[in-house]
């Protein structure tokens, strides 16, 4: 065996010497035979002939020796590859187009896979033995996918009761921004993650400097003001200075001391990456609106849980135990969700608990993310199919051209398998080129796609590495594609009938034409599908984004502050906001500015119920529940929302003065049908709405504003606007309209910092650039992907149609020439060719339209807010393809009409 292995290496590395040796040996044998014949008295020529005859052909013997050599198979494969590479280099245009179209198909699919890999398949980075980690989740028994966090008291129960888990940790899912201040510097915004003190221990994340949290950190509320920094934040903010341990920093004004820095690479367990971590006992400092209630109230659900499986325990066992604990908790501590007004939603839910494999996307959202990625993957897979169909067609055509070569090879003794292998090697080489180019393309596309996602207001931890899974994926997909589109043409080519193919003008077998035609039909069908899908998505983005939302979002800067971060109360906060808006309005270039509790969004804010004298609320409800908006004066002017009646709030509408309100158009119609709303009175009820008669305040209506169209297909809500000076909210959004395109964001930030250095500015973006929710972001990404691949598909289809038509013309040159010289009109010839091309396009088009109807239905059934495509879309797509097909047919047709009798004869 060892000898054979040595030979293998020698054959491979010292090929030339081995070959020369064989050559010499056979020449020596031949000379010997010749000598013998000469001695027998033959003439030299005759001696040589007899010797050769005896030996049976030097080359043939050599070939047989080569076949038994160690690594013979490898050798022929190498030979095949060399031959294939020579052919590809000799046809650069063919090679380039084929490789580019493959690269696009493979690159696109790899890109989507990279993202799916990063979001769904990858395990957490920086933790030890991530395979043993589980996410503990609960979801509503009824209701779609979503996340249902757990309360802190429930967390403590789960942690005590779970026996299958080596520790249960918890963290706050929604990061709250906080103001960070070091001794003498101004405030900056950071995102602290609130975690239980065993978080790092259970995950197995050590500290690089100092320590992480441990048993020494008290779990008593407010008793352990310590933080652990993320490595990324430590490097960025503190230049990786180890001296940071022991320093004091202020979060929302509370002093915390830095105890350590977590291991590099660890950025938490979700796609949202905290800058630093704070123990759960300090949660009140970061969530001032809720305070220490977060540690005791069972209705306050803010934690995501996870744990590590005990050695020997399986996830299924742990999940069963967690489910049982969930049932027990619901029985022992029933929770009444009375924050929702009666009649608006259910007051208690039953939850199903389980332990799921740990993942950066919480399991409740995985379904949504996976669904979206499946949509994208389907779109790009179609491109790959088109590219493959295109290439298969080209390979088939090449097979026709090469049928003589194949026939020669068969005639001199190559088996059919050998020929197929050679042809497949060529295809595989082509796909390897395409695969490598695709992988490179995927790198570019991935960063492009990530940048397409809306700019997150949070620090995100989306790592989409090109790891071994991605490389394996693109390799596998290239190989599968190569086999799929290489096998049929190779089998066809190898079927060449030796005798007839060697004749000069053999007719091409018709089944090959049929195959070629069906590739073009498939290509057209799938391109139609892509183009229509793209049209549906683009139209939906348009519908979502270009709808007149009832306000003018252009040239409006948005910045938010949270007054509770700097310790303001209702009394001090009102003064601050009054001064703030005056100074913002004084900024040069600011045309109008206002304050609001939030930017205009599709969400609804509930701050209390409403009664209107003489009008009864909806059946079963005690109150109307309007959408509350707390706004400062000039809100309507800044956003250019027309006031239909009455007037705006004024500076006189302040605390202590007559409470006033402005209502929306729909509310005015609903509350005061047939009369003017201005001057009328509504009563607002705040506090607990479940007591029969909650205290109420009478508001005088001073104006009626046009309703905002916050989301398509949604009826306008009953809008209620109250002045900010009469209703304190700690979260304040500054909206400033500038007179020119220049942003005032920096000036606004400067104003806030100069007024209170402890108050960080949370968002500073323009209203236009703020996304309108995840649905729009998804649609935008999907539409961009589908739109660009739709174009590519169209291009590939055009190339396919051109190819088949050009080929037809070339094949029928003689026939056309004869027809023309016999007096057929050019018109008739054009008709003939066109009829053939258009039959293919028509068939593909019909198939594609049918496919699109199905896909449109499926998309509409998903939750992407997509409507089924209309007749106009289909008509437009049909027209587009006919035009493209005509353009693609133009050049071959021109050629066909110029064929003269001489060309036809020369063709012989």
């Amino acid at each position, binding site marked *: 065996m060892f000898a*054979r292995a040595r030979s293998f290496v020698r054959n491979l590395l010292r090929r030339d010497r081995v070959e020369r040796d064989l050559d*010499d*040996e056979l020449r*020596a*044998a031949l*000379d010997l*035979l010749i000598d013998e014949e000469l001695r027998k008295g033959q003439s030299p020529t005759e001696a040589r002939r007899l010797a050769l005859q005896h030996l*049976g052909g030097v080359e043939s013997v050599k070939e047989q020796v080569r076949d038994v050599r*160690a690594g013979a198979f490898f050798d022929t494969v190498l030979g095949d590859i060399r031959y294939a590479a020579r052919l590809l280099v000799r046809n650069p245009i063919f090679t380039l187009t084929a490789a580019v179209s493959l690269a696009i198909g493979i690159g696109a699919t790899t890109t989507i896979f990279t993202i799916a890999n990063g979001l769904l398949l990858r395990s957490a980075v920086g933790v030890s033995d991530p395979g043993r980690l589980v996410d503990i989740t609960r979801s509503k028994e009824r209701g779609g996918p979503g996340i249902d966090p757990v309360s802190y008291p429930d967390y403590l129960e789960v942690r005590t009761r779970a026996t299958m888990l080596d520790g249960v940790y918890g963290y706050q899912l929604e990061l709250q921004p906080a103001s960070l201040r070091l001794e003498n510097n101004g405030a900056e915004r950071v995102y602290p993650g609130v975690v239980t003190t065993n978080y790092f221990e259970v995950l197995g994340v050590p500290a690089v400097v100092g320590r992480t949290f441990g048993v020494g950190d008290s779990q008593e509320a407010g008793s352990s003001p310590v933080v652990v920094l993320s490595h990324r934040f430590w490097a960025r903010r503190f230049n990786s200075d180890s001296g940071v341990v022991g320093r004091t920093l202020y979060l929302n004004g509370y002093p915390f001391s830095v105890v350590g820095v977590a291991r590099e690479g660890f950025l938490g367990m979700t796609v949202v990456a905290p800058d630093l971590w704070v123990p759960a006992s300090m949660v009140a400092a970061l969530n001032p609106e809720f305070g220490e209630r977060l540690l005791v109230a069972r209705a306050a659900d803010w934690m995501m849980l996870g744990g590590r499986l005990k050695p020997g325990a399986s996830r299924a066992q742990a999940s069963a135990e967690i489910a049982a604990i969930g049932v027990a908790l619901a029985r022992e501590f029933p929770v009444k969700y009375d924050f929702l007004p009666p009649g608006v939603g259910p007051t208690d839910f039953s939850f199903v608990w389980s332990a799921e494999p740990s993942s950066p996307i919480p399991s409740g959202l995985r379904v949504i993310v996976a669904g979206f990625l499946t949509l994208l993957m389907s779109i790009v897979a179609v491109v790959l199919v088109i590219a493959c169909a295109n290439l298969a067609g080209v390979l088939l055509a090449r097979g026709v051209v090469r049928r003589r070569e194949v026939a020669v090879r068969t005639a001199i003794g190559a088996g059919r398998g050998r020929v197929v292998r050679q042809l497949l090697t060529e295809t595989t080489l082509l796909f390897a080129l395409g695969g490598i180019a695709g992988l490179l393309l995927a790198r570019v596309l991935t960063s492009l796609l990530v940048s397409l996602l809306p700019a997150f207001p949070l620090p995100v931890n989306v790592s989409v590495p090109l790891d071994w899974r991605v490389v394996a994926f693109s390799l596998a997909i290239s190989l599968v594609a190569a086999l799929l589109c290489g096998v049929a043409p190779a089998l066809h080519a190898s079927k060449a009938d030796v005798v007839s193919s060697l004749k000069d003008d053999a007719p091409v077998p018709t089944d090959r034409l049929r195959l070629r035609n069906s590739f073009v039909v498939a290509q057209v069908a799938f391109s139609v599908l892509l183009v229509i899908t793209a049209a549906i998505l683009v139209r939906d983005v348009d519908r979502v984004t270009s709808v007149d939302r009832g306000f003018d979002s252009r040239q409006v800067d948005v910045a938010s502050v949270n007054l509770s971060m700097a310790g303001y109360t209702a009394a001090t906060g009102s003064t601050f906001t009054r001064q703030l808006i005056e100074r913002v309005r004084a900024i040069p270039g600011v045309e109008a500015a206002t304050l609001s509790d939030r930017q205009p969004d599709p969400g609804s804010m509930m701050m209390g119920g409403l009664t209107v004298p003489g009008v009864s609320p909806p059946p079963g409800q005690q109150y109307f529940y309007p959408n509350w908006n707390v706004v400062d004066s000039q809100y309507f002017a800044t956003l250019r929302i027309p006031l239909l009646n009455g007037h705006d709030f004024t500076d006189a509408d302040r605390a202590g003065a007559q409470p006033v309100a402005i209502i929306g158009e729909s509310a005015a119609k609903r509350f005061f049908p047939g009369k003017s709303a201005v001057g009328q009175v509504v009563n607002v009820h705040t506090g607990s709405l479940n007591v029969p008669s909650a205290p109420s305040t009478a508001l005088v209506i001073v104006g009626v504003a046009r309703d905002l169209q916050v989301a398509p297909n949604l009826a306008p809500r009953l809008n209620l606007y109250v002045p900010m000076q009469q209703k304190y909210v700690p979260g304040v959004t500054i909206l400033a309209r500038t007179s020119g395109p220049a942003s005032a964001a920096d000036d606004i930030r400067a104003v806030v910092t100069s007024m209170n250095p402890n108050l960080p500015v949370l968002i500073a973006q323009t209203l236009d650039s703020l996304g309108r929710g995840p649905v729009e972001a998804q649609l935008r990404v999907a539409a961009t992907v589908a739109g660009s691949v739709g174009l590519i598909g169209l291009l590939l289809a055009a190339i396919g149609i051109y190819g088949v038509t050009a080929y037809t013309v070339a094949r029928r040159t003689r026939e056309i020439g004869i027809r023309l010289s016999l007096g057929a009109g050019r018109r008739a010839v054009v008709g003939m060719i066109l009829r053939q091309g258009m039959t293919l396009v028509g068939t593909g088009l019909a198939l594609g339209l049918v496919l699109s109807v199905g896909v449109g239905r499926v998309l509409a059934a998903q939750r992407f807010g997509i409507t089924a495509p209309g007749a106009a879309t289909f008509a437009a797509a049909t027209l587009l393809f006919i035009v493209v097909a005509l353009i693609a047919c133009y050049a071959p047709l021109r050629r066909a009409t110029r064929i003269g009798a001489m060309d036809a004869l020369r063709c012989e």
Partner: protein
Amino acid sequence: MSQARASLLQGTLDLLILKALSAGELHGLGVSRRIEQITGGTFVVQPGSLFPALHRLEESGWLTSIWEASENNRRAKYYTLTKAGKRQLGEATEQWNRVAVAMTKALEA
């Protein structure tokens, strides 16, 4: 051609080559002539089978080769049995004898 028959034929040729070389070194054509001679002309090994077999046996480590001057003063590649080749010849002969006895018995039964 079935696997069994192929390996039987191959085994036979290998055994004959090893046997032919057991008396001393020979060049390629010499091997084929020696086989013809020792089998009384029953087996005539064509060069198309001979050279591949020689190379295969050499790669298996049973033969080694050396370039030497031939009878009429030409260079030729001479093959000799290696130690492993001699061992293989013994084993193969023994096995062949067993097969031959068994076959004879079977055909006489």
